[in-house]
């Protein structure tokens, strides 16, 4: 990484945030923006109190409650522990002079939705949050990654983090995405290819004409699930699409700084001939609409595929884990994916809870009804996404189709609030994890795109959007 040699986007951001390269081999990296939520921060603030340390730079932190909050009747949170946790965040941010978007604030929402929406997330920044899906912000060409609570405390106290450089990986996807294939299918396909540990120790830069042609919303879906491929972060080069998205947002650089910011952002894309430790090239025509069948995000299959047979596994361990997944999911090898009957549909989360997602769902379910046996829930990613959808009349279309229209939050993506699956309930979900028990103990999750989830809601079983009229 010497000066003069070609650098990747990651190398450039890293070098630009290096406060000190220490003798023990670690680097002290400056953090431009710290996002804080109610679940992974109380113990960090408690740690500061015990050591009598202040928050070093309160203006570099923004806080919001999202994981734990109900999506209906939220004036008074019934669950005592949840209420205490949300109140603790309000108290801690007040005490330390940190900006906090209250539950009643229209801007409240999932931390990874509101950062970009407010223009807080900007190219070239380092961004951390006590949440693994912080990788979402990489869509703007920001180095963004999840950290543990001890590190949250470290960032609050010092505005820096102790790191070792990650390795560079580039995944290029070339060609137009085929009809019915979305950025969610693209990232699910990638995870299926490289596995949930495929990105360990790496930052993945997504490149190629397919990626460049995507909207910011679609790019965020890709970077969001980088963590499901084991990567420390995901990155996409900032370009005109990025700048157009940011311009005029409340926390974006003001007019007086805009030209200077733009100059800086334009220096960020990887140099030609920059070195990557790992390189993967994908032809967009390989990709079908994808669905998960098991309990790991790498358990993906084309919507036209079959539930796989464990005897096809390459190793004994993998075979055992497939058998365990199939038993948990209540599925039999050889079943057609499109024959899998559903009980619930969840549309939302930091992966797919943005306005574009809701528009796409509304376009599919307009003037139709979801199947009688299916319950459908739509949770906008933020209060502003909800407001925008209502201004466009999407809420009417979605409610007429039979969906429940909720307030913003993480909701059933992780089921910390009352929105959960019951044992053995089967759900088509636009979220990011299909782990055992993730959406509720015994609940069975099939990850997919919002488009597929919408079509599946109407059909009552998993649907191929390409066969949907």
């Amino acid at each position, binding site marked *: 990484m010497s000066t003069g040699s070609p650098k990747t986007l990651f190398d450039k951001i890293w070098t630009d945030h290096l406060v000190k390269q220490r003798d023990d081999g670690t680097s002290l990296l400056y953090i431009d923006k710290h996002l804080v939520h109610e679940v992974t921060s109380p113990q960090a603030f408690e740690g500061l109190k015990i*050591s009598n340390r202040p928050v070093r730079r309160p203006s570099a932190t923004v806080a919001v409650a999202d994981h734990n909050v109900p999506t209906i009747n939220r004036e008074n949170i019934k669950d005592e522990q949840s209420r205490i946790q949300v109140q603790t965040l309000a108290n801690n941010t007040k005490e330390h002079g940190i900006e906090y978007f209250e539950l009643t604030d229209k801007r409240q929402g999932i931390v990874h939705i509101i950062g970009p929406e407010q223009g807080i997330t900007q190219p070239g920044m380092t961004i951390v949050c006590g949440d693994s899906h912080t990788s979402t912000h990489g869509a703007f060409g920001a180095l963004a990654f999840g*950290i543990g609570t001890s*590190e949250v405390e470290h960032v609050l106290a*010092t505005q820096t983090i102790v790191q070792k450089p990650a390795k560079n990986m580039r995944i290029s996807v070339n060609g137009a995405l085929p009809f019915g294939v979305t950025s969610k299918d693209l990232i699910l396909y990638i995870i299926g290819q490289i596995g949930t540990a495929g990105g360990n120790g790496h930052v993945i830069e997504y490149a190629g004409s397919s990626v460049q042609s995507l909207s910011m919303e679609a790019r965020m879906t890709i970077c969001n699930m980088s963590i499901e491929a084991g990567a420390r972060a995901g990155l996409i080069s900032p370009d005109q699409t990025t700048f157009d998205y940011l311009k005029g947002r409340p926390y974006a650089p003001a007019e007086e700084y805009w030209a200077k910011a733009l100059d800086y952002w334009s220096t960020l894309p990887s140099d030609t001939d920059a070195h990557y430790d790992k390189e993967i090239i994908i032809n967009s025509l390989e990709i079908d609409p994808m669905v998960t069948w098991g309990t790991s995000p790498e358990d993906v299959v084309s919507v036209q595929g079959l539930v796989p047979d464990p005897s096809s596994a390459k190793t004994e361990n993998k075979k055992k884990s497939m058998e365990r997944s199939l038993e948990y999911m209540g599925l039999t090898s050889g079943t057609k994916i499109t024959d899998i009957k559903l009980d619930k549909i969840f549309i939302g989360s930091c992966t797919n809870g943005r306005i574009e997602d809701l528009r796409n769902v509304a376009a599919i379910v307009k003037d139709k009804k979801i199947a009688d046996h299916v319950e459908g829930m739509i949770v906008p990613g933020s209060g502003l996404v909800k407001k925008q959808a209502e201004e466009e009349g999407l809420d009417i279309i979605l409610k007429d189709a039979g969906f429940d229209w909720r307030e913003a939050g993480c909701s059933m993506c992780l089921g910390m609030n009352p929105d959960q699956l019951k044992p053995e309930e089967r759900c088509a979900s636009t979220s990011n*994890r299909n*782990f055992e*028990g993730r959406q509720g103990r015994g609940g069975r999750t099939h990850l997919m795109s919002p488009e597929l989830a919408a079509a599946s809601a109407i059909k009552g079983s998993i649907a191929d959007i390409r066969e949907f009229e």
Partner: protein
Amino acid sequence: MDKFISLKGVAAPLPIVNIDTDMIIPKQFLKTIKRTGLGISLFYEMRYDHQGQEIKDFILNTSPFNQSKILVAGDNFGCGSSREHAPWSLKDFGITCIISTSFADIFYNNCFQNGILPIVVSPENSKKLMSLAVDQKEFEIDLPSQSISVSGEKIGFEIEEYRKQRLLEGLDDISITMNYEKNITDYESQQKKNKPWIFKDIK
């Protein structure tokens, strides 16, 4: 932070791949505002039935493994959510060393913040250690010499020097970083010139 130097005892075998942090500590236990008291809920859904009764054949419910300080687990341990509640619950249960072929980045890092030693071994050694764990052999973990000794066999492991030192001395990252306060302040003043829109509040 607690130091980690050496450890002796039986190791609990958990031969499942991709054990995620949701499995280690499910969501309902993340509502706490404390770091302690999570050990009883470790691996909750594998450990207790729907009535909250212990599932008899789950490894950590059986003697002598219910006293294990060491866990031998399948590939890619600790993937998923960044929740530090995962190492907190392991530690509270009494587990301070985990052996696997690989760990997810955030979990791996979180272990060192809590005096837990995650050891990466080759697939061959993992297989060997898994079966020695099943046979209830006594494991001896020694951090200074970076070795696992069991049944007369000694297996070495790699660990970054700075992480080793911090575990051996029980050092806290924040107090070390505080020594670089001047570097941080200098960095901020310099960056204010380059990126004034990010450093408006810095004088």
